[in-house]
């Protein structure tokens, strides 16, 4: 399953989609929007994709991972658009016969995804202080 979607991601069906009785191991990674990073509070992130190329690169990543590890099923789903803190931006799920392979493949997929798939993120600016001025100011 490869998908770039503006809709809220539910991890459950994605992880379920890679389960199979041939696998002994399912490794999954969820990237989520961190609300606090050091001293900074994030009010949201805006993800932008080059959709055609991003879908092509995700498919290439899956093919490359399948050539390196005995992957039974794989899923790569990335959200785009405006995300609130705590929401899921990306899910990678992989099933393999054994756990070492599943961890390595999942880790390689998310690491490589973050390097080569043309999807960018940006903090949503806090404009509340401008918008919420009391009437008359």
């Amino acid at each position, binding site marked *: 399953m490869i998908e770039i979607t503006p809709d809220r991601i539910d991890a459950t069906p994605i992880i379920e989609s890679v389960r199979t009785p041939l696998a002994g191991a399912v490794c999954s990674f969820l990237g989520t929007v961190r609300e606090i990073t050091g001293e900074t509070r994030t009010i949201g992130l805006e993800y932008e994709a*080059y959709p055609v190329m991003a879908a092509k690169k995700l498919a290439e990543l899956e093919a490359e991972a399948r050539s390196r590890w005995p992957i039974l099923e794989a899923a790569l789903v990335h959200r785009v658009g405006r995300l609130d803190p705590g929401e899921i931006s990306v899910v990678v799920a992989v099933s393999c016969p054994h756990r070492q392979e599943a961890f390595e493949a999942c880790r390689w997929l998310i690491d490589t995804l973050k*390097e080569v798939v043309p999807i960018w*993120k940006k903090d949503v600016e806090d404009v509340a202080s401008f918008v919420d001025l009391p009437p008359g100011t």
Partner: protein
Amino acid sequence: MKATILLFASARETVGAPSLTVELDENSTVGGLRSALARACPALIPLLPFLRIAIDSEYARNDQQIIPHDAELAVIPPVSGGSSLEIPAPP
């Protein structure tokens, strides 16, 4: 020939538009495209070392590669490896 280059993220914000049309020589290389981008929008110059060029959704492998006719061209800023859109300082 005229070529339209798609712009994303910091490159789009720097130019202020989602694409840029430039004049390219026939048999222009990726290097020629970078020069054309710099001429068309000098504000891109400091970003250029960090921008990759994609030809038909594939990263252009080097500056010698010739741009095919009717290819979809795009400027690819550093992708979101974990931090945001900031362009790293030159080494």
